[in-house]
C-alpha cells in the first residue's frame, strides 16, 4: 500500500483512527460482539443505492480511536448480487467517501468453526490483516470442546481470540490482539487455493490492476477481485470488472479460465474443495472434542417444536400471545403518550395566546409528533418479541414451518414474520425484512407489507362499523347471566376489513412476481441455529436500536408533512372572528373556574354538560355561564368548519370532489382523506374538524358518529350510508396512507422509486376497491 496515493491524509492522522471491518457467518453472535465493543455508540444507515445496512460503531481503546464497520452476516465473500458486492467493496476499502479498512475481524462460533474457516480463508486472500474471533467460547467449553489457541494461530497465520460477547469475556484480549495485528507485520499467509489459480490471479492483477476505462479517478483494483473474477463465472465481480477495466481484461480472463480448465480444475467447485480441505486440516490439528450430548438436545426440542401437529399449534399460540400482548400491553402505554400529548398541548395553549403560533405548535407540531410517538410502545413491544424469538433460535423454525405456505404465493418462509408484524405496524414489519437474503423476496415482502391491516386502521374501522353497520346478531348465547354474541354483522365486517389487505396481497405478490420481479422462485437455504436462552443485552439493545431509528427517521417526515397539512388547513382564511370567539371562551372558562374551583378540569371541549350540574346543585349563575360556554363552543366549532372550507385544503377538496364522487364521497370526506395521507388515523381528527366539532375527537366520541350520521349532501340526501361507509373503509384498508411506512420503504430500499411505486399501486387499488364497493354496494343495498 503506498501512502503517496493519498496525499490529502497525513499518515499520523490516519493511524490515529483504525478502521476495522467486522465480518462473520450468521448465528455467530457477531452483532452481540459489535454492540459489546461499540456500545450504543453506533450509526446505522444504508449504502447508497442498495439494501445493505451500513452500521458503524465508534470506540476508544487507550489512545487508539477505533471505527468498527459491521458488514452483514454472510457465509462467503463471493458476490452474486449488487448487495453482496457492496459488502466486499466495503471490506476492500473501495467505496468512495469511506476510508480504507486496516483490519478484518472474522467472528466465528467457537463450538463449530470449521465452516467459518471457509469465510476466514477468503478474508486471508484479501490481503487485509485479520483476526479470528472464536465467539461463544463459554458454551463451547461447556460442551466439552477444547481448542488449542496457539496451535490455531500458527495454522492460520493470524491472531486468535476467545470471546463470549454476551458476558463480555475476552474483550480485553481482543483489543490487545488488534494492536498486535496492526503493529506486527506477519508474512501473508499462503492462499488455500491451488498454486495455478493463484498464479493466474497474479498475472491478471499485474496486467490489469491499473488499467481503467475513461474514469481516471478509480483507484487500483485489488487482487481479491481478480481472484473472484476467475472463480465466479457469471458472478457480480465479473460484471463489475468488465465495466471498470479496459476491454483487454475480458479476453485475458477467458484465457486464464480456459487454461485452468484444461489443467483439470473445475472452477465451480475447486474453491469450496480447497478451502474446506484446509479448514478440515486446521480443525483436525487444534480441536479435541468430547461427545456432545446437547447437540441432540436441539434435535429433541425441534422434534416437538416442528412436529407436524404440535409445531403449528405452538406457533399459532405463540403468535396469538404476541399479538394479544402487543394490543393489550401497548394500550396503557399508548394512553400514557396520548395523555402526555394532551398535557403538552394544554400547557402550550396555556401561555400562548390563541392564534397561528398556538395552532401551529398545538395542532401542527404536538399533534404531528404525537401521532408518531404514539406508535412507539407497539414498535418496542413487537421488536422485543421478535428479538426474543430470534435470539432463542425459534424464528428460523417458524420460517421453516411456514415456508410451504408462503411458497404458494411466490415468497419464502422468511417473509412470514415481517408480514405478520405488519399487522401491528408496517414500519417494524418492513424493517424486519432485513433477515430475508434474497433481493427479490425482500422487495416483494416490503411492497406488500403495507397492505396488512395495521393497528392505525382500527380506529377508522371502529368509527364506521359502529356507526353505520347494522348491529345484527346471528348467534346469541346466554351465559353467566349475560348475552354473548357469537356472530354479529359488525364483527364480520370488522374481520373482513382486517383481512382484506392480506387477501389482496396474494394476487398483488403474484402479479409482481410475474412482472417486475420475474425469474425462478428463490431458493430456501437457511441455517437453523442451536436453541439457546436469549441474552438480555442483545434483546434490549435491538429494541433500543429500532426505536431510535424509528423516531429519528420516520419522525422527521411525519413531522414535516403534518405541518404542511396544518398550514393548508389553516391558511389563508380570515380568522379574526374565530380568535375573538376563542378569547371569549377562554375568559368565560376562567370565570367559571373561579366560581367553582372544584370543577376546574371541566373547561375543555364539549364536556361541561355531563360534568357540571349533575353532582351538586349549581347556582343559576354558573348554569347560565355553562350554557353560554357551550353555545360559544358550538359556534366556534361551526366557524372552524367554515374556515376549513375556505382554506387551501377546503379548496383542494372542492377541486377533487369530481374524483371522489364516484366513491360516494363528498368534498368533506375527500379532504379528510387527503389530510390523512401522512398518517391514516389523522382522518378522525380531520373529520371532526370538518363536521364542526373541532380537531379533538376520538373514535369513541359518539357526537362525531351522530354528526356523520346527520350529515347531508347538497341535495339533502343522507351523506354516509352503509355503501359509503364500506367504501371509505375499503379505501383505508388498501391505501398507503402512512408517511412513516413510505419513509421506511425508502430507507430499506435506498431509492425513492419503491415508496413511489408502493404509494401509487396502493392508492390505485384503494380507489378501484372503494369504487367497486360503492357502485356494487349502492345497487345491492339501495
Amino acid at each position, binding site marked *: 500500500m503506498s501512502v503517496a496515493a493519498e496525499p490529502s491524509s497525513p499518515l499520523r492522522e490516519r493511524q490515529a483512527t483504525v478502521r476495522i471491518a467486522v465480518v462473520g457467518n450468521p448465528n455467530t453472535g457477531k452483532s452481540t460482539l459489535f454492540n459489546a465493543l461499540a456500545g450504543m455508540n453506533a450509526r446505522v444507515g444504508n449504502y447508497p443505492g442498495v439494501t445493505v445496512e451500513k452500521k458503524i460503531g465508534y470506540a476508544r481503546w487507550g489512545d487508539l480511536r477505533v471505527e468498527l464497520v459491521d458488514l452483514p452476516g454472510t457465509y462467503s465473500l463471493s458476490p452474486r448480487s449488487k448487495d453482496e458486492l457492496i459488502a466486499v467493496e466495503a471490506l476492500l476499502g473501495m467505496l468512495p467517501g469511506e476510508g480504507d479498512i486496516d483490519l478484518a475481524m472474522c467472528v466465528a462460533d467457537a463450538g*463449530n468453526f470449521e*465452516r467459518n474457516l471457509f469465510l476466514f480463508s477468503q478474508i486471508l486472500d484479501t490481503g487485509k490483516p485479520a483476526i479470528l474471533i472464536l465467539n461463544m467460547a463459554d458454551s463451547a467449553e461447556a460442551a466439552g470442546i477444547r481448542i488449542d489457541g496457539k496451535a490455531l494461530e500458527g495454522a492460520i497465520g493470524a491472531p486468535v481470540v476467545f470471546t463470549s460477547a454476551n458476558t463480555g469475556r475476552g474483550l480485553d484480549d481482543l483489543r490487545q490482539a488488534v494492536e498486535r495485528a496492526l503493529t506486527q507485520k506477519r508474512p501473508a499467509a499462503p492462499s488455500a487455493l491451488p498454486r495455478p489459480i493463484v498464479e493466474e490471479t497474479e498475472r491478471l492483477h499485474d496486467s490489469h490492476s491499473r488499467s481503467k476505462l475513461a474514469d481516471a479517478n478509480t483507484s487500483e483494483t485489488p487482487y481479491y477481485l481478480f481472484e473472484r473474477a476467475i472463480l465466479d463465472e457469471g458472478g457480480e465481480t465479473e460484471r463489475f470488472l468488465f465495466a471498470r477495466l479496459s476491454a483487454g481484461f475480458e479476453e485475458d480472463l477467458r484465457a486464464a479460465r480456459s487454461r485452468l480448465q484444461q489443467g483439470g480444475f473445475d472452477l465451480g467447485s475447486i474453491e469450496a474443495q480447497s478451502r474446506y480441505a484446509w479448514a478440515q486440516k486446521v480443525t483436525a490439528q487444534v480441536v479435541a472434542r468430547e461427545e456432545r450430548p446437547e447437540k441432540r438436545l*436441539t*434435535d429433541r426440542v425441534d422434534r416437538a417444536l416442528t412436529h407436524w401437529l404440535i409445531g403449528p399449534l405452538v406457533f399459532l399460540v405463540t403468535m396469538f400471545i404476541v399479538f394479544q400482548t402487543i394490543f393489550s400491553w401497548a394500550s396503557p402505554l399508548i394512553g400514557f403518550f396520548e395523555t402526555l400529548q394532551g398535557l403538552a398541548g394544554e400547557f402550550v395553549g396555556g401561555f400562548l395566546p390563541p392564534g397561528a403560533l398556538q395552532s401551529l405548535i398545538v395542532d401542527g407540531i404536538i399533534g404531528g409528533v404525537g401521532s408518531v410517538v404514539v406508535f412507539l410502545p407497539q414498535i418496542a413491544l413487537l421488536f422485543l418479541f421478535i428479538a426474543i424469538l430470534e435470539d432463542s433460535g425459534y424464528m428460523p423454525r417458524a420460517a421453516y414451518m411456514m415456508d*410451504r405456505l408462503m411458497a404458494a404465493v411466490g415468497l419464502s418462509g422468511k417473509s412470514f414474520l415481517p408480514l405478520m408484524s405488519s399487522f401491528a405496524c408496517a414500519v417494524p414489519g418492513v424493517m424486519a425484512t432485513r433477515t430475508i437474503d434474497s433481493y427479490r423476496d425482500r422487495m416483494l415482502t416490503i411492497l406488500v407489507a403495507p397492505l396488512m391491516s395495521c393497528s392505525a386502521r382500527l380506529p377508522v374501522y371502529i368509527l364506521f362499523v359502529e356507526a353505520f353497520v347494522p348491529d345484527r346478531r346471528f348467534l346469541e348465547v346466554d351465559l353467566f347471566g349475560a348475552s354473548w354474541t357469537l356472530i354479529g354483522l359488525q364483527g364480520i365486517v370488522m374481520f373482513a376489513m382486517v383481512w382484506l389487505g392480506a387477501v389482496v396481497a396474494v394476487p398483488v405478490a403474484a402479479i409482481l412476481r410475474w412482472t417486475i420481479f420475474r425469474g425462478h422462485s428463490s*431458493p430456501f*437455504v437457511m441455517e437453523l441455529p442451536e436453541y439457546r436462552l436469549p441474552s438480555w443485552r442483545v434483546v434490549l439493545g435491538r429494541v433500543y436500536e429500532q426505536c431510535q431509528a424509528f423516531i429519528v427517521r420516520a419522525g422527521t417526515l411525519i413531522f414535516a408533512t403534518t405541518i404542511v397539512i396544518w398550514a393548508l388547513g389553516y391558511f389563508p382564511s380570515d380568522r379574526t372572528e374565530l380568535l375573538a370567539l376563542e378569547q371569549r371562551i377562554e375568559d368565560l372558562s376562567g370565570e367559571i373556574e373561579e366560581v367553582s374551583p372544584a370543577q376546574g378540569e371541566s373547561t375543555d371541549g364539549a364536556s361541561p354538560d355531563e360534568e357540571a350540574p349533575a353532582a351538586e346543585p349549581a347556582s343559576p349563575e354558573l348554569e347560565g355561564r355553562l350554557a353560554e360556554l357551550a353555545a360559544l363552543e358550538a359556534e366556534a366549532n361551526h366557524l372552524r368548519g367554515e374556515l376549513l372550507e375556505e382554506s387551501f385544503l377546503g379548496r383542494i377538496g372542492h377541486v377533487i370532489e369530481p374524483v371522489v364522487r364516484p366513491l360516494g364521497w363528498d368534498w368533506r370526506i375527500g379532504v379528510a382523506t387527503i389530510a390523512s395521507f401522512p398518517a391514516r388515523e389523522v382522518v378522525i381528527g380531520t373529520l371532526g374538524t370538518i363536521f364542526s366539532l373541532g380537531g379533538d375527537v376520538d373514535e369513541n366520541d359518539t357526537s362525531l358518529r351522530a354528526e356523520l350520521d346527520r350529515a347531508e349532501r347538497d341535495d339533502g340526501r343522507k351523506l354516509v350510508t352503509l355503501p359509503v361507509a364500506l367504501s371509505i373503509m375499503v379505501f383505508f384498508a388498501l391505501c398507503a396512507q402512512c408517511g412513516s411506512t413510505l419513509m421506511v420503504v425508502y430507507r430499506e430500499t435506498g431509492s425513492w422509486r419503491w415508496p413511489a411505486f408502493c404509494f401509487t399501486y396502493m392508492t390505485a387499488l384503494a380507489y378501484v376497491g372503494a369504487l367497486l364497493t360503492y357502485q356494487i354496494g349502492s345497487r345491492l343495498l339501495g
Partner: protein
Amino acid sequence: MDKPLPLTLDALPRDASARIAEVQGNDAVSRRLREMGLLAGQSVRRSGTAPLGDPAIYFVRGFRLALRRAEARRVLIDQSSVEPAVD
C-alpha cells in the same frame, strides 16, 4: 456390474445419514450449498421434515440446514453409504 442409481438428498429418510457424492449444477444455489460445506464425501443426516412435507432439515458439518426439496435434489448421495436411523 451396474452402477447404483444415483439417489438425491431429498430421498433420505428421517434420521438416516449418507455421504454426499456430488452437488450438481454451477448456479448460485449450487455454489451456495458448496460454500456451506456440502461437498463430495461429506456425511449428512436428515433430522426432520416440516409440517407440510417441505422443506426438510439436514445436519451437516455440525449445523442444521433447512432445504426445500427442489434444492435437496441437486445433492446426489452415495447409495452404498446410506445408514438408517440409529436411535
